[in-house]
């Protein structure tokens, strides 16, 4: 398989609609990379440019350090799997899997060997004689993925392949996709709007918003050191909480609560001075809740408790903002009772209020 690189790639439609703006990244051979962002962020245009379905407006796309801008989709040897399975209903599963090989002009014997091998990898041996209409959703998805991979492609591109799967099926299909990637030592690029999906599968993520790359990094790195408020809010569910604050020093921040200010110790702040207005971020799973007054904690009232199975979600309001905390089921509290909110030093994030840029840099 190949590495894939974007060098200052732009995609401009109709002369002035900028879908992708000066994007540069590199996906190494055998890596699993997710391109993540909300609708309209430029991820689908990026995918289409990699696949050769769309021309690059400016910049270069390279496979194994060779520019492929002018190569057709077929010449790039890409395997593309979509959200819809797009199986040929008159053909059997065998016929569906064999189709890309027949198009390539491969002989019958070779086709048979390849189909048998890929069917084994995707556990489809028992359904080879069936028509697509007789398969379950999970089986169809596997056929679609298997068919994309049967040609030994340079790059495996996946476009939201799981977004319409039901919950129970999704977690096993994720495991399968990851297993197949590891087994085949494929270079996989996965495009999705679903942060959970990207976090689940990828080694590295490219987070996009409004045509611009916001951050490129290892998944846990992005989770722990989001580059800006957009990334911090987009990656993680439920979303990170944000409060207003003022920097007191390079490791202290004053938070504006309903009953005056409290002061929290933070990691070392760079790029802003005392007196700067900041947004203070804490993830719902990292909020510390006390049922009794604690020094430097924000007092508030439990507004809502939602039991969601393996945890509880507590909603409360501070300074006009709805905030959420995740707690274990055993945590006992009731609606309308007072609670005191705080967070550990290394779980507090700071963002410059105007630009949203992170003020805590990776050590």
């Amino acid at each position: 398989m190949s590495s894939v690189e974007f060098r200052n790639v732009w995609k401009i439609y109709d002369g002035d609609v900028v879908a992708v703006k000066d994007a540069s990244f590199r996906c190494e051979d055998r890596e699993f990379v997710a391109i993540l962002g909300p609708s309209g962020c430029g991820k689908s245009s990026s995918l289409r440019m990699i696949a050769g379905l769309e021309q690059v407006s400016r910049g270069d796309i390279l496979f194994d350090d060779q520019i492929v801008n002018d190569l057709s989709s077929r010449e790039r040897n890409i395997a593309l799997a979509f959200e819809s399975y797009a199986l040929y209903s008159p053909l059997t599963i065998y016929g569906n899997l064999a189709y890309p090989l027949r198009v390539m002009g491969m002989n019958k014997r070779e086709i048979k060997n390849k189909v048998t091998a890929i069917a084994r990898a995707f556990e489809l041996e028992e359904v080879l004689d069936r028509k697509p209409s007789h398969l379950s959703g999970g089986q169809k998805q596997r056929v679609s993925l298997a068919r994309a991979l049967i040609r030994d492609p340079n790059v495996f591109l996946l476009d939201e392949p799981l977004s319409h799967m039901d919950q129970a099926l999704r977690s096993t299909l994720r495991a399968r996709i990851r297993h197949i990637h590891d087994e085949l030592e494929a270079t996989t690029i996965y495009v999705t709007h679903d942060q959970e999906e990207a976090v689940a599968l990828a080694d590295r993520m490219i987070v996009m918003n409004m045509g611009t790359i916001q951050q490129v990094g290892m998944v846990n790195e992005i989770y722990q050191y989001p580059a800006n408020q957009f990334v911090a809010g987009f990656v993680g569910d439920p979303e990170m909480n944000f409060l207003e604050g003022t920097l007191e020093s390079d490791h202290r921040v004053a938070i504006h609560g309903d009953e005056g200010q409290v002061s929290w110790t933070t990691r070392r702040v760079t790029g802003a001075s005392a007196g700067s207005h900041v947004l203070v971020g804490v993830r719902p799973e990292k909020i510390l809740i006390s049922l009794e007054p604690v020094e430097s904690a924000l007092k508030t009232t439990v507004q809502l408790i939602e039991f969601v199975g393996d945890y509880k979600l507590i909603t409360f309001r501070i300074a006009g903002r709805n905030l959420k905390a995740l707690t274990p089921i055993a945590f006992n509290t009731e609606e309308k009772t007072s609670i005191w909110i705080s967070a550990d030093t290394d779980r507090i994030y700071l963002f410059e209020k105007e630009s949203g840029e992170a003020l805590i840099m990776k050590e």
Partner: protein
Amino acid sequence: MADVKVENITKRYDDLVALNKVSFECKEGQFFTLLGPSGAGKTTMLELIAGIKEPTEGHVYIGGQMVNKLPPQERNVAMAFENYALYSFLSVYDNIAFPLRSPKMKGLITSSEERQRVQEMATLLGIEKLLDRRPQHLSGGQKQRVSLARTMVRRPDVYLLDEPIAHLDAKLRTSTRATLKELAKEFGITIIYVTHNYREALALSDHILILREGIVEQIDTPENIYHVPASDFTAKLTGDPPINLIDGEVLGNSKGVFFSAAPHFSFPIASELTEKLKNAQWEENDRRMVRIGIRPQDIKISRERISDMAFDLPVYATIREGENSVITFELKDVFLLVRTDSDHYKVGEKLWIQFDQQCMFFFRKTMDISK
């Protein structure tokens, strides 16, 4: 507000039985949810309560009155549909205000009251800036919130909500879910809610009815649905990643009772659990079988053998979940999913696995579980 009682409802279409002898009671002010996969009959049930469809057998009572013969407009229920059903020629404001302008409401609401109610509902649902637009210029998520606002703007006896937030993106869904719950509490309204999303059902409801192919599987509180599922079917519906269900043979010797799903996958069952196991087991080809249910967070894995209850398997794949990981192992028929806070395991590496037996369920087999 009023209570709703459904008594022995059956709905047949030719040969197809959509609902089969369904009975339940939703008390006044309750949030009552019908949870089940698509095709279970949830929407049909709502349509029967609304009066859009007629039951083949059985009775529907609203506020103590049998309403089988009443047309929809005389039942004083408000229904939000999954497919929005907005009027494309009206603005968002007029769509939301529409129910307040029906002939029945004439003279009951002044135009300033109307404005206030529409504004209030739009603000609660975060669509106050869209009031002048037409539905065709809205995203799916925005349309869905307009549809919900239109339903909630009136004060009927009962609200019937069919997947009202299913098309919102994950974050908006979480916040709208909370809004809906606060609304329900604040006004003490009676809601019958349909969803296939177990988190919504658990978070919102006072009671949940699990519907399975037109038949009531279980009616209980959210806590009991999650912690004391009556069947493998209910257990599999609630949890993400879903609960592991594993079939195996029950073997007994002088040392006690063993569960064996494969040569490498067998372990002794704690003696205090054998009674529960016996109640669930079945006979198959002269073997005693049982289905174990265990949630991914109730399994421990490690590189060292923890105890003689542990067994070992190679890692199939690792997927991440926030700062946790879900390690997957492949068994003959199913995958075994384990949630852990470490992701330093390699594909193919053998790990020792141990179930927290106090968290194990024993089920009869009522559904196919093969991957």
